[in-house]
């Protein structure tokens, strides 16, 4: 870890001003930033501690919408009774993320900004080539250990998986990220690598996430998050699915559905093809499994991550059928 200057911001305004300076990085819960600084990936010149800004940790939930301040803790949002009843997939995604200790430290804003777990990205001393870290240096993962890497949204520049859980639920339900001056859909906030793997978010120097807003909906109310991994807890997803379901009055025909995937793509991955294939269709196992396969259109593996192509549709199907059973 390199020496850095430390500044405590007392207001969003102060944070914005400080964050606009070159080499400045925001510090919220620190669970990503400190970790990456130790690996030698993050080398901030100035750390701007925003964790003491008043009023940024509010959790405000109604049937119409949920608003989480950027500094709200993962564990607080996960445990909020209204989040649990009106946005269950959001609560479940958070509960299944990281560990209890991390969830108590980590913030919602920081969570969106977490970086990939690609092992090559995290070891600059041994693997200098990484387009995400050093644009144009190449990709050490391609041809290497790829078990955790993405099969969707990849490019020649980068195949790193977006590792988070919460954002998968957020893109499913059309959430927005509030940057103060502008608001954008979480889905657009995340960027696939393309030729610019280093750009993961549509965020500009000096911008600070202040809140996340999720519109309330029937699909959000009946929703779930299914996360699959070798270890029962404290592991990133091999594949995960956030699904919301609204049925017709007959209680078996799909009226509206939302499906997003985690653990298999370079960004939180909404799969509209699956949604479209199921709208107006009866909710039987065969139909659901077939439709779920559509999520893998265009998927490309790099050997060890091949299993994700088989796994991800099954995770989607399980989530949809699970919601169907509770109809």
């Amino acid at each position, binding site marked *: *870890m390199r020496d850095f200057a430390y500044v405590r911001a007392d207001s969003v305004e102060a944070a914005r001003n400080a964050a606009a300076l070159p080499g400045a990085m925001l510090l919220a819960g620190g669970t990503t930033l400190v970790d990456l600084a130790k690996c030698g990936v993050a080398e901030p010149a100035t750390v701007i501690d925003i964790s003491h800004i008043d009023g940024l940790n509010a959790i405000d939930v109604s049937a119409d919408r949920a608003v989480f301040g950027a500094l709200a803790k993962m564990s607080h949002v996960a445990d909020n009774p209204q989040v649990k009843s009106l946005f269950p997939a959001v609560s479940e995604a958070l509960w299944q993320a990281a560990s209890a200790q991390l969830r108590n430290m980590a913030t919602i804003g920081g969570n969106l900004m977490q970086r990939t777990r690609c092992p090559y990205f995290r*070891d600059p*001393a041994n693997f200098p080539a990484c387009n995400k870290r050093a644009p144009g240096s190449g990709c050490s993962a391609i041809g290497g250990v790829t078990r955790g890497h993405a099969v969707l949204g990849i490019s020649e520049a980068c195949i790193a998986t977006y590792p988070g859980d919460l954002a998968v639920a957020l893109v499913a339900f059309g959430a927005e990220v509030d940057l103060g001056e502008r608001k954008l859909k979480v889905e657009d906030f995340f960027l696939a690598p393309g030729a610019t793997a280093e750009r993961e978010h549509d965020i500009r120097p000096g911008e600070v996430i202040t809140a996340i807003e999720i519109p309330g909906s029937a699909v959000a109310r009946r929703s779930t998050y299914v996360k699959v991994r*070798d*270890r*029962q807890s*404290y592991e990133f997803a091999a594949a995960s699915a956030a699904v919301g379901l609204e049925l017709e009055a007959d209680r078996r025909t799909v009226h509206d559905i939302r499906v997003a995937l985690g653990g298999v793509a370079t960004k939180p991955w909404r799969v509209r093809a699956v949604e479209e294939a199921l709208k107006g269709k009866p909710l039987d196992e065969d139909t659901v499994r077939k439709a779920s396969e559509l999520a893998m259109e265009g998927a490309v593996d790099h050997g060890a991550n091949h299993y994700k192509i088989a*796994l991800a549709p099954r995770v989607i199907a*399980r989530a949809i059928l699970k919601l169907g059973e509770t109809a």
Partner: protein
Amino acid sequence: MTVHDMKHAASDSARLEAVGGRLSRVDGPAKITGAAKYAFEQQLDGLTHAVLVGATIAAGKVTAIDTRAAETAPGVLAVLTPDTIMELRGASDWFGNPPALSTYCPLAREVTFSGQHVAAVVAETFEQAVAAAALVKVWYDETPAIVDLSDGKAGDGIAIEAMTKEWGDAQAAFAEAPVRICAAYNTPREFQAAMEPHGLIARWQGDELTIWEPSQWLDGMARTYAEWFGVPFENVRLVSPYIGGGFGSKALALAHSAVAAAAAKMLGRPVKLVLNRPQNFTSYGGRAATRQTVAIGADRDGKIQSIVHRGVNETAVDGMWVEPLGSVTSIMYATPNFSSKQNVVRVNTVVPGAKRAPGENPSAFGIECAIDELAHELGIDPLEMRLINYAEQDPHTKKAWSTRQLREAFAAGAEAFGWAKRSPQPRSMRDGHQLIGWGVAAGTYPVRRAHGEAVVKILADGSVEVESSSIDMGQGTYTILAQTAAETVGVPVSQVSVKLGDSHFARAGVTGGSRLAGVMTGAVYKAAGQALDELVGLALSDPRSPFQALQANTLVVQDGRIASPRGEGPELSIAEFLSAVGRDQIEAKGDTLPVNTTPEQRYKNYTTIAMSIPHTEGDWSRYSWCAHFVEVRVDEDFGTVRVSRVVSALDSGRLYNPKLAESQWKGGIIMGIGQALLEEGIVDRRHGRIVNGNFADYMLPTNADIPDIQTISVGIPDPHSSALGGKGVGELAIVGIAPAIANAVFHATGKRVRDLPITLEKLI
């Protein structure tokens, strides 16, 4: 040195306190409250900090090191390279064999594995050392590396003749057997993954060296330091009050230890060096990756006629590690014909090392899966299969077992598990999406024995002190030695304090191979008995003794009080008595060595493993035994495996403290679950580097992965194994867990996974 406040653990119940009682860990409160100070938590004046620079290639030469930027960085005191670090002498190995080279440089010029230390930076603060270490530039001349056993360049390796075990004509008998199975079983590189990293503080005062370092073997490591620096053994003091997990990895002084001690000498200031987490995956060896083939030929009624076994384990380019893969294969089942051979293959890794039950653990994975395959082939229940081939004596040495409660273990485990209700067909049990499987496997571990020494003091206030340079890495040495001394002298446990982890105390050999409890309870029993004899002798004979007038020939010491056996005459507390006779303490040193042992032999006994006593010495073959019954649930869509039930019945002989033994067994079972389902050091094949060397990516089981575990003790005192009748506890229970799980996964899914770990993509 550590004195525990025993009051926390004290109980009124004598039953709890006696040897065999369920006394809670006496060091528990100190650990839970954070009062326990681990080795490198010492605060020393003038402490400096060293950080290592690791090789970024797996094979080749260091051609140049540019230290200029690091040297001028803030706070830097020294940058050490192979050219600038002081020259050390070669040290003998753990058998006491003299070194091949007379000098030793702990920083590498020739790189044989990724992460090998090539330089070190010492600075005033840790942060300064870290920052400066990143400025050290190293140039290499890289050569192709052999990354692992499956590397095309690896070859067949070196035959280890000493591992060959053969009787009968195994090949011919296999060829003629009416039923045959043959399969290959692989285990990956695994790591001990202790919570407490490796590291040390080294301080020189003149030519006296003090090392604070977590250690499973103070005397052995002190010897290594003494030899490296050419100082007398007595000049080195190793202090290791607590160990935050070792699992076999903390028994040797390693290259990083040498760097720290050399830096301290060169700078004339104490140096602290702690490996960071990734360095804990490259600076010392975990369990070697292994490959085995097991061929079994049997009659149609299931009786084994022949076992042919071949094993390979990886070792380092510049170091030898043999993981004895035929160890369980050769003793678990009766067979008239047997052949086992083993090779080792050199690859570019740090020298592999001991991890809980080295040898027995992977060996059991092979044979215990193979026997399950044979049972399935024959349509015989896998438990029945094991009983059909029960070995009534050691099939290898043909000696009688000292004790073997394995039949009892099978019976007790099966009963508690409900094995009789198992439906034999694979994929025949399910619960919704979950396929349910039941598996069984046996395990064993030899009773490794050695000699030990202890000092027991009876102090003026009537309390008892035990001193030993043995250690407690969580297994309960503090507690059982307190129990042993309390019972032997006749005082409450609350009046005993145990001091461990200082090489200036009475000597002890390695804490490994599950031998320490047996060795040390024996030594303390002896020393405490001598102290008691002296106390009673004094009471009977000292002219100032109130008991002298009794003319008795013995006295009873109980609950800290001295009285005559029949209760006539005076009754005094030990403190009152000592004050009456004007003694301020009684001290006895006891050891279990033969009386005519020379000082040289003693030194060798404690500082090498050359004098440990074979488990098949004399008329007996001595082993601990266990039977594991496991239920798994496999998600049929996802391929994820969860262990939902474990019942294990174990024979560790007499238990000195059942509560602690159960914890050890459970710890082994949990580690076995990790081994079966999660753990694997993943190597980048192009760079020969472990890419998951951290606790987020090297998967260890969490509490959520562990079901309720039921352990049942079926042991009986084994007088041939130890002074007090115990056999080994610490390593036994991990042996057989992975095959029990693999067998259960087969029963659940019909898929035989022979490569550990059983991750989801192997089942999907």
